[in-house]
């Protein structure tokens, strides 16, 4: 687990240079401001922005891309098929810079899915080849509630290296071998601690004091009786059935598989799917066990707050607040958690 092997600092004015170097040596994924701040492959440090609380899309794209080719096939004249070897993109070493502790935690939850009973080589391969450089969170958003799930937004628990912004420099801490190795490799950028770092960090942590922390200890049990009943009616009514919450969620991991078939060959790909979409559960017969928005919205919360917990002992939420911030009709998971834990949900 967390074994602090090394602490260093980097002066803020050297960061861009470091990122340039990282971008040169690795497939570097970092936050970029476009219409929004999103994780994206960058070629140089100057593209990177660190002026954000959290990105719109979580970095799950880097491990579980929205659209991912599983394999390509070719077709020859005799109508035979040939499976082509996967391209070497999958084997690239990548670095994610700027991942927040909540998103980093979500990877641990995703691992439970992709490294559980079935091993997903695509995901795991990327996971293995990725070094995570986290960015401690000192200015959470109104919608943030990660402490609910035992996440310390300033900690490097789920990353290889944690950068903490402490004013004129970053405190840089490697928490894994992989992280330490990377620090060694780029040792020229890092300096020894000056000594006041821990103090500065503590000062910055003051901003975390008022963060929302809900009591979710018994929520999985309290969800069970809500399966029937009309609590979900008004939420389902409000819900538009779009995929924002699921696509932005760092822990949602459902996918669909389809083929693209061309004259010369084609590919099989998988892509994100959403339990909010009607065709998600549509069967070939035309039957749909979750025929309406209420059934689908209910499924989403049951999965996050109960089923995932039943299976993995964890809730499928890291409190990043994206779904709250971006829901166009203001469906708020924290309100639902409060309704459920307070018992209000059962009594409407």
């Amino acid at each position, binding site marked *: 687990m967390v074994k602090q092997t090394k602490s260093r600092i980097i002066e803020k004015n050297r960061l861009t240079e470091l990122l340039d170097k990282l971008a040169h040596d690795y497939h570097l994924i970092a936050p970029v401001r476009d*219409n929004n701040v999103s994780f994206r492959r960058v070629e140089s440090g100057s593209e990177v922005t660190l002026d954000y609380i959290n990105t719109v899309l979580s970095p799950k794209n880097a491990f579980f891309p929205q659209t991912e080719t599983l394999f390509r096939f070719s077709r020859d004249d005799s109508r035979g098929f040939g499976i082509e070897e996967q391209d070497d993109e999958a084997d690239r070493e990548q670095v994610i810079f700027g991942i927040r502790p909540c998103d980093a935690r979500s990877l641990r939850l995703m691992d439970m899915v992709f490294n559980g009973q079935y091993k997903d080589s695509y995901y795991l391969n990327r996971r293995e080849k990725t070094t995570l450089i986290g960015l401690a969170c000192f200015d959470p*958003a109104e919608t943030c509630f990660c402490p609910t799930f035992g996440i310390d937004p300033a900690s490097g628990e789920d990353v290889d290296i944690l950068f903490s912004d402490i004013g004129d420099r970053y405190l840089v801490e490697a928490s894994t071998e992989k992280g330490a190795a990377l620090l060694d490799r780029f040792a020229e950028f890092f300096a020894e601690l000056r000594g006041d770092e821990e103090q500065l960090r503590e000062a910055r942590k003051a901003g975390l004091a008022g963060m929302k922390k809900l009591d979710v200890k018994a929520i999985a049990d309290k969800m069970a009786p809500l399966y029937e009943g009309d609590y979900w009616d008004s939420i389902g*009514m409000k819900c538009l059935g779009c*995929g924002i919450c699921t696509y932005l969620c760092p822990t949602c991991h459902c996918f669909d598989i*389809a083929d693209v078939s061309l004259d010369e060959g084609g590919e099989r790909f998988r*892509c*994100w799917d959403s339990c909010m979409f009607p*065709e998600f559960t549509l069967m070939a017969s035309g039957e749909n066990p979750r025929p309406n928005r209420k059934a689908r919205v209910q499924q989403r919360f049951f999965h996050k707050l109960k089923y995932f917990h039943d299976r993995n002992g964890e809730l499928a939420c890291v409190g990043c607040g994206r779904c709250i911030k971006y829901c166009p*009709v203001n469906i708020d998971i924290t309100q639902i958690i409060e309704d459920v834990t307070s018992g209000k949900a059962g009594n409407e």
Partner: protein
Amino acid sequence: MKATSEEVQTRVKKLFEDGSIGHFIGYETGSDSLRVTPCFLKSGQAASRLVWNPLCANNLSKYLLDFKNVEGKVGIMVKGCDSRSVVELLKENQIDRDKVFIVGVPCSGIVDREKLLEVLGVSPGEVVAVEDDGDAFVVTLKEGKQRVDKEKALRGECLVCKYPTPVVYDVLLGEAVSSLPWVGDDYSLIKEQEALSSEEKALYWNRELSQCIRCYACRNICPVCTCSECIFDKKAPRWITKANDVSENLVYHLVRAFHVAGKCIDCGECERACPMNIPLRSLNKKVEKDLLELFDYTAGIDVEQQPPLTTYKAGDLDDFL
């Protein structure tokens, strides 16, 4: 005089009492003070939850589709733009006028949350309330009040709104607003885009559309996207694959824009819903402009007016081969 939340509450309560309505769709305060959320009432008792303020962005008219088969009339609160989508729903036989009771509220512009926070330089938690005060919003912060010029904090569609007062209603709360002082050439942005070269346009839209994550929020929130089964959800024919690829995104967005051609009333919900901040209104606005220029058509004004692409004039412009 502008309508107030209290006025809305009193009127809705009365409507329930006199049996005019059996349901009401309005707004209530959301999970923070800069949000409202749709509110569905079955009785007048909870009418006190209702609010009306410059944060009431949602176009509630689409929810009427969910009330097709209920007993009694459904009351709904509409702004100018919302009322126009009601007109479009009526045109398409999607709702029955006799089963809807429309509470109209003239609107002098809705707050663009992100813009407002930017101008104020505060986080949402600081804001207690926002009120409309003519050409400015008065924002009550935890510490004091601030006036923000509307033009700096309005939603894009409100900056070009020509129909602030509902065009159809059973009751109008507050005074009609005939025009909004800041509205000038509503197509200036479109014209700027049109003037670009094909390469520039392609580059621009390639970049914008490549960001789409195909969450379908723009479609699902659109009050005039009324198909129960969208062609994009069909397996056969498969118009687009689920692969999130710019060619598929292109088909999705162009067809979407075309399918609402002549129906889009620029309520701006698509753009508001888009988590990726894609300038979706631009496409709709372009179509709107062309329909006006080519066929002198404006959507959502008159239930009797035939949709522009279902009719023709022999003398329509003909500059084809």
